[in-house]
């Protein structure tokens, strides 16, 4: 197997092909790909359907990488160095075992498409600066564990596609109405009962637009509008009647519908017990390290001195 991979890498290097296709090669560790470091001008890396458990921080040394596809692997954590990749536009880490996104991930300078479908992410696992990704035009968060979408989503002004399919969403933030370019919204398979009236400002009913909202416990008036057609739903949530009903519904504060989907069979959940241990241990070490090292940083941000206490 390894010799076959080596052949592919060598081919790519010799032909100066900036795209490396290593789909379904049983790779467990990126660093074990023979000759991988020599492909420094790689622009596309496709490692779908492998057994990769972690992405090395050195991936950021591939300064020309624009596309990374790591779909269907066993990745539990991404390196923080990803956010320093100057050309990274498309990152697909769907169908992995991610419990969080790395700290500072929102600093990715040119990220346009982020696919984290089918992981174990929730609102608490997003880094604080996540919604600084204002270059993002497509965000795929289907098959995750979000119960609330943070209102900061309204800052992703370039977002055109937002997939929130099959999460545990109880409500949608009204700030979705602030996304003027949104033309595709998937919210099917959640626990949604009402739509914020602010979504009426979105244009999601044309032939170029997509609005998927099935498999939600919608309140009866919305269900009725869905039966006539999607455009009627948007007409309805723009109406004063609905705004009034919505206000009453919110102030009534009804308890959210129960989860109905059983996620235990998701492959992102497998080996959950070992996951928990592996995920926690590096943080403990990091905390311990911070206690004994003082790093002085001058105003220009370069390290001046590192001293042991």
């Amino acid at each position, binding site marked *: 197997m390894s010799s076959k991979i080596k052949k592919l890498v060598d081919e790519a290097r010799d032909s100066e092909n900036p795209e490396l296709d290593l789909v379904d090669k049983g790779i467990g560790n990126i660093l074990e790909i023979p000759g991988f470091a020599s492909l420094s001008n790689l622009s596309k890396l496709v490692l*779908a359907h492998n057994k990769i458990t972690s992405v090395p921080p050195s991936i950021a040394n591939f300064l020309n990488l624009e596309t990374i596809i790591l779909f269907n692997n066993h990745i539990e954590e991404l390196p923080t160095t990803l956010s320093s990749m100057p050309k990274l536009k498309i990152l697909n880490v769907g169908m992995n075992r991610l419990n969080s996104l790395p700290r500072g991930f929102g600093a990715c300078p040119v990220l346009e498409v982020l696919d984290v479908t089918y992981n174990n992410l929730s609102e608490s696992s997003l880094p604080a600066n996540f919604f600084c990704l204002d270059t993002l035009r497509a965000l795929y968060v289907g098959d995750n564990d979000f119960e609330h979408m943070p209102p900061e989503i309204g800052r992703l002004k370039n977002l055109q596609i937002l997939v929130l399919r099959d999460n545990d969403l109880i409500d949608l933030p009204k700030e979705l109405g602030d996304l003027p370019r949104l033309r595709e919204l998937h919210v099917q398979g959640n626990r949604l009962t009402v739509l914020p009236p602010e979504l009426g400002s979105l244009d999601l009913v044309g032939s170029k637009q997509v609005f998927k909202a099935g498999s939600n416990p919608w309140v009866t008036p919305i269900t009725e509008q869905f*039966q006539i057609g999607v455009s009627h739903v948007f007409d309805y949530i723009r109406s004063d009647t609905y705004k009034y009903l919505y206000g009453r519904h919110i102030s009534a504060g009804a308890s959210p519908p129960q989860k109905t989907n059983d996620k235990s069979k998701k492959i992102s959940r497998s080996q959950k017990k070992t996951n928990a241990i592996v995920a926690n241990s590096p943080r403990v070490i990091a905390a311990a390290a911070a206690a004994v090292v003082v790093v002085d940083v001058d105003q220009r941000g370069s390290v001046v001195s590192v001293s042991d206490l």
Partner: protein
Amino acid sequence: MTTASRRRQQLFSLQPLDSRTQSPLFQRRRLAQEEDMGHAPQLLSLNGHAGAGGEGGPSANMSLGNAVCERCGEGFSMDEEIINCNGKVWHKECFVCAQCFQPFPEGRFFEFEGRKYCEHDFCVLFAPSCARCGEFISGRVIKAMNSSWHPECFRCFICAKVLADEGFVKNQGRALCRDCNANEKAKGLGKYVCFKCHCIIEGGHLKWKGEVYCPYHFNCYTCGVELTADAREKDGELYCLRCHDKMGIPICGACRRPIEERVIHAMGKTWHVEHFVCAKCEKPFLGTRHYEKKGLAYCEIHYHQLFGNICFVCNNIINGDVFSAFNKAWCTNCFACSICDRKMNQKTKFFEFDQKPVCKNCYDKFPSELKKRLKKAYDEALKLGKSS
């Protein structure tokens, strides 16, 4: 009231014209006639009875034997009343007004160019009429402002003070007393005076060939409408704003105002540089390429964004063949499985996953619980599509 009615009586009653009449015109005429004709009429009688006003004059020397009537040329019978006037004689019935052929009331007549008129007809024919009240003027006539006036009719245009004795000042075609004239002058200070009518220009003025005019003295060279202050001069002619805007001077298709600087010609219209903008983002093209669709112009980005030819993967505008699926477009280079990135073509079968294409190979690798859910959602969508 009483003074007004009295004045009207005065105005309407005819004053006798004689040497006491103060009208200089009449006096001039009267003197000229007197030189020719002698004096006032005399009523004579052949049997020596002198009529009214008959004393004195040349009648004493009259020989009546071969005298004939001035008018009809007939002789006189013995006891007929003869009218003698300035050495000429008339039958009583011939001594009448040259206009109405009626005897002169109270024997008073007015003579002009050898003809005698009763007072009424003389006034009708020769007396001046007042420019204010329109009645005949006998007695004192005020000649001013190219018209004749009764002394009591010639008044200040503003304060109506009688001006006959005090004198007046001509101001913009009006006769004013000195006080009112001073006031008017003060009011008009700082305003333009029309070069044509010399009036102070109220409202906007019109400049033409270096002079200032009341705008209404001019008409539009094209449409003939009376001009207002916003008229424009072009090549020495004056035009109303509408016509001026239409003439060769381009009008911006956005703001509808004339373009005086750089002109953009596009979409069969003209535009201010900064007004020719993308219909979506409203940013000016500033000379960059624009795309037209249904009478609207778009920048490259928004044209393709709206009309769908930006590649979903590389985010570039697609020149050439376009793959369209799931409300997205791909360039031939980028159309591939969204998971394994294997190239696809028109014949490749693929699955839909979050509105992205997935090849059969990749789809088969999906965990069975996901495939089950996708299948269920697909069936539901199909059912909904059929029912609606």
